């Protein structure tokens, strides 16, 4: 795996920014629809403290939501893998979290949890839990027949099977689920902040009412950075772990 900067992505990013900068300056695109990248940067630099506070608020809400998803999602996946009855009776309801648009239930969350962080966390949790359940379950059940028989022959207990066989086998699926859920947790947190206030979500909502499109774009830029940074951190963790043990050997980033 290369640790060098992804050059094609960097070049295309610079080209797109330059094209927009030129297009806005030459008034090919009206500035009220799309601000020049330099304007967005100026907006960020005018109020760095405000943006930083909002950034870390959203980050906190989404990461706490994600953490809860990991804890509850993994626990549910383990229970589903152990009991067919439980899976058949509960899993269809877990699908609810995947299919219902978060923006439609966010107002309900405000009623239940009030304004502020609890609603944001709940929204991030609801949106990010399903990929964790689905991928962990898929991984836990992905153990080959031969490996199952090997453990059976040596009289392994259910706990030994879970920790020494199923979880290590499920690593690649769990990693894939986490990658999806990170992005979803941020989306959920923003949707929560639209209705419950706080963070970059509230900033975007307030800027929208004031027609401050530069603030909206600055916040969107920060959200992209947040998502990329989180995924990059996950990749670093994965690579560090792989140096110790070849978990999920065939994974491609």
């Amino acid at each position, binding site marked *: 795996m290369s640790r060098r900067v992804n050059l094609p992505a960097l070049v295309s990013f610079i080209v797109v920014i330059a094209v927009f900068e030129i297009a806005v300056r030459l008034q090919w695109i009206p500035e009220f629809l799309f601000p020049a990248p330099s304007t967005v940067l100026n907006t960020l630099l005018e109020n760095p403290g405000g943006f930083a506070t909002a950034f870390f608020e959203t980050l906190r809400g989404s990461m706490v939501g994600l953490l809860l998803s990991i804890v509850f999602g993994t626990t549910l996946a383990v229970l589903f893998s152990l009991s067919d009855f439980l899976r058949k009776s509960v899993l269809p309801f877990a699908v609810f979290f995947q299919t219902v648009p978060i923006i439609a239930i966010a107002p309900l969350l405000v009623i239940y949890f009030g304004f502020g962080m609890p609603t944001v966390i709940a929204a991030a949790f609801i949106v990010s839990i399903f990929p964790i359940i689905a991928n962990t379950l898929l991984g836990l059940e992905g153990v080959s027949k*031969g*490996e199952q*028989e090997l453990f059976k*022959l*040596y009289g392994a207990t259910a706990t030994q099977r879970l920790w020494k066989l199923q979880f290590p086998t499920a690593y690649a699926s769990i990693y894939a689920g986490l990658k999806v859920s990170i992005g979803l947790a941020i989306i959920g947190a923003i949707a929560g902040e639209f209705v419950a206030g706080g963070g970059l979500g509230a900033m975007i909502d307030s800027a929208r009412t004031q027609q401050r499109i530069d603030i909206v774009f600055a916040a969107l830029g920060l959200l992209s950075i947040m998502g990329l940074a989180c995924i990059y951190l996950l990749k670093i963790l994965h690579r560090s772990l792989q140096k110790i*043990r*070849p978990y999920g*050997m065939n994974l491609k980033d």
Partner: protein
Amino acid sequence: MPAVLELQKIQKKFKDREVLKSANLELQEGEFLCILGPSGCGKSTLLRLMAGLESPTQGSITWKVEKNFAFVFQEAQLLAWRNVLENTRLPLELQKKLPLEEQNRKALAALEKVQLKGFQNHFPHELSGGMKMRVSIARALSSSPRVLFMDEPFSALDEVTRFSLQKQLRDLCEKEKLSVVFVTHSTYEAAFLADRILLMNTQGGEFILNEKIHYQQAREDELRVSSQYQDTIARVSLKMREAFV
């Protein structure tokens, strides 16, 4: 030689398909028994029944000594995230009867028996097919079994590796005084390894040949070009042709 294991009137059905009709078998102590037969004849099913991986529809399986066996699968079945030592000590780790140091000591001794000393820190993806199979055999040996069940363990390997492993296995089993049930579809393999060959019919699990194999020569590579070995192969092959063609 006293019997280690006895199978009487074993019937095995998978839904409506009767794989074994009424199989009888006795494994002697220290014996290397090869069960030979074409694909789908039920020889692997018979082995899995002996190991308790399947239950017979009818009939009885009686252990005449303490039930103490290990199983070697067709594929090495090594866990990719565990190194060679950790894979080898897996049975001991799962049985939790020995402290970790003792588990490691036994695993290292088993690795030495299959000539893999020095490879204990390698991971499976760093090993060749033959080495993986040797780790799989070492894993089986780590729990000090008296009986070894082997299900076509060398079928996926190239000829040079296969010949070398056959010789190593035969030496090891003689040295450790292991009783072995070895399933194969290769007459050449069975003729080299076996003290006794059981040839299975295409259906029903009936044995159409039960022959003791004895060579004047040792089971070394030279045996493969000896007339006695060639005669054994010819005899078993002829019986196979008569039965299956």
